[in-house]
């Protein structure tokens, strides 16, 4: 069975590429365009991995991350944060809030894929 990944990002232009890439790699891909939708989709669809953008409308990535980690049922969900802010302080905040990995835009799609595979232990 193919693994399920949720892409939560309001930037359509990056979603297009990541979605295309992950589908080509055989993953099942879901897309959410804001924080609230992302949280709902995680609860409903139980993806193994969430690619979480920090700057999103309605609820930002940090808050989504915190909400996910507060729910024991979802503890198995891996979280990879993607952000346009590359400050060290933010990286540490994301990891501190329970994210499993952190990538700063612009990133190489190959590295993204490698990170996705690492987190899914593939």
């Amino acid at each position, binding site marked *: 069975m193919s693994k399920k990944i949720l892409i939560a990002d309001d*930037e359509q*232009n*990056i979603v*297009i*590429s*990541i979605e*295309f*890439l992950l589908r*080509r790699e055989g993953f099942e891909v879901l897309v959410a365009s804001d924080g609230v939708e992302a949280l709902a989709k995680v609860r409903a669809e139980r993806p193994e991995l969430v690619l979480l953008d920090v700057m999103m409308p309605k609820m930002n990535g940090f808050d989504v991350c915190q909400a996910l980690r507060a729910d024991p049922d979802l503890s198995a969900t891996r979280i990879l944060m*993607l*952000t*346009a*802010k*590359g400050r060290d302080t933010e990286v540490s905040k994301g990891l501190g809030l329970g994210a499993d990995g952190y990538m*700063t*835009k*612009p*990133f*190489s*799609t*190959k590295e993204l894929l490698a990170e996705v595979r690492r987190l899914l232990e593939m």
Partner: protein
Amino acid sequence: MKAPAKLVQAAALVSLFLLAVVLATIAVILTGGADGSADGSLQGGRIVALVLLTLAACAVSYRVLSSWYARYVNAPLRMAEDLAAMTAHTGLRLTEPATDELRALGQAANHLLAARDALENDVAERVREARASLEEERSRLAALMADLSQSVVVCNLDGRVLLYNQRAKQALSAGPDGSNAELLGLGRSIYTVFDRALIEHALERLQPVARDEAGGDGKKAIGSAQFVTATRAGRLLRAHMSPVLGGDGQPGALVGDLPVTGFVLVLEDVTQTNERHARRDELIQSLIEGGRGPLGSLRAAAEMLSDFSDMAPRQRDRFLGVIRDEAGALSAQFEKAAAAFSNDLRERWLLEEILGVELLAVAARRIGEQGHGEHRPLVVKTEDVDESLWLRVDSFGLLQALRYLALRLQDEYEVRDVRLSLKRSGDLAQLDLYWVGTFMNNEVAMSWLQDPMNIGSESSPLSVVDVIERCNGEIWFQRERVSHRAFFRTMLPAAEAPKDLPRAIVPAAEGERPEFYDFDIFHWSSGSHELDDRSLAELSYTVFDTETTGLQPSEGDEIIQIGATRIVNRRLLRHECFDQLIDPRRALSPQSVKVHGITRELLVGQPVIAAVLPPFHAFCADTVMVGHNAAFDMRFLQLKERQSGVRFDHPVLDTLLLSAVLQPNQNTHRLEAIAERLGVSVFGRHTALGDAMVTGEVFLKMLPLLAEMGITTLRQAREASERTYHARLKY
């Protein structure tokens, strides 16, 4: 008469007297012996004769002795009195006494007096010289301070202001709403402007540096301290504090063995610098963070396109669309940042405002200076100069560029005269350097503009283009074949005339000190005395006057104008004034309009009394208030206490009462009359400030007269005032 003759005269007189006595005695004896029997009547006649003779002798002796007394006893006594008077005043001489001995003594005394006068004149001359040189130094200091672009304030250890420049006044006197609160003034406390703790902390920080450095190489030194603080008007100031060292024996605190008597604050407005830094940070941040998103999308899309070349055409188009969008967005963002940055860059060069016509005059002079090499000096003319045009340029660089181009024309094309012109062209200034005759082709001109500016002994690593770019301008070469003219044209942004040029220090009248300075307050110490026992001479005063709608404060009459000035160290500070019109929110009585000439129209839009009294209260801080018939004005002020929230509980002196103390027999104590009696010229009366000035002058004239009456402290002045009849008047 010579002394020996006098001796002869005296001897003759004494001999005559003795002779008379002897003759008389002989006569008595002879008549007694010849007669034997006592013949009463004969004897009586003899006695009478004897008595008469004795009386005659006495009269003669008296006359002679009294003339001697006048000459030899009285005259020296008079001379002694004259001499006593002469020791007090110069230029007086003893009149020649009648007698030779005293004349000799008088001459000797006159010589002494002359010698003493000469000595005094000499001393006075030296004092005057010393004072003149001091005055010159003061003026030099004043000029220097006026020119500084920073604010400078000098205070003694109590925080009393001893000196400040115009910049400081501008920077520190502005209130939060842009009003001018006049917080800075001689003798005022710096703590009305800055937090006391802040200054004290900075003073403490001077100390450790002193210790460290003193320990180092044995040299005595005290460091300085810095702090950043905000003014009431919300500007950010960076302050640099350094100590004022006193000479030996001057009172002051010891910092690392050195006596400190005060401190200098050099203040710089860093609001703009800080804003600029913040703006630049923001710009960089937005560039970096704003770029990441679009770049991420671009990179991902590009990688998809290259990694998966087998994708469907529809998919490929989507990726190409992403690339187009994001590249466009990124370009726009870059343009925005570049524009913001160039604005910022513009401010970083030391560009200064200069009046175009001035720049051209200097340029003409510099280009036409002594011929360089074997050339004769170039002829330079200025034409078509817009005299109102201000430029914001690196004037040194621009002058260098113009000179370089002109001299190179002379060197390589034997141009003998060049013209400079400056015109306005929209928002730009057009500066042309042109000449008639030979000219070069475009390539040569381009290379001139881009070569480092080396001409004669002057060399610069910069090119003309560098300099012009630095001034945010453009320069190019152009020729007009028809007129045989060629020119280098420079377009520069026109600037606004600068608004805050440091105002020149107000020139003091001859013999007067500029009023921004008063070092004498160095020896002043607050808090050491109760105000009441302070000497009148050392107190600071606020001399004030008000104009009102009428004479009945308790029946609703209101203040419409307050004028005040200050007296510090017995000097009237004409430049530290408070002058404010006030909207009374009621009608003016026609009689009052006749007195002060202030009409309703003048008062519309002026602040109301409740807004004016707090700054006026601050202006009066730490001073004794002085007014003419002050009770009247104080009554108005005190009736407004609740409304304005400030209490005028300052000590008050009234020139009307003091006049009654000084001249109890005069019929009138009107201000004009007193001014006339004391020799104060009156002008500008019946404006509040004008009256306050006259009152101040009158008060200053009164101080020495009061001192003569033994009234030297505030307490004595108040008590004497209370005793006068007028004090019983109540308004």
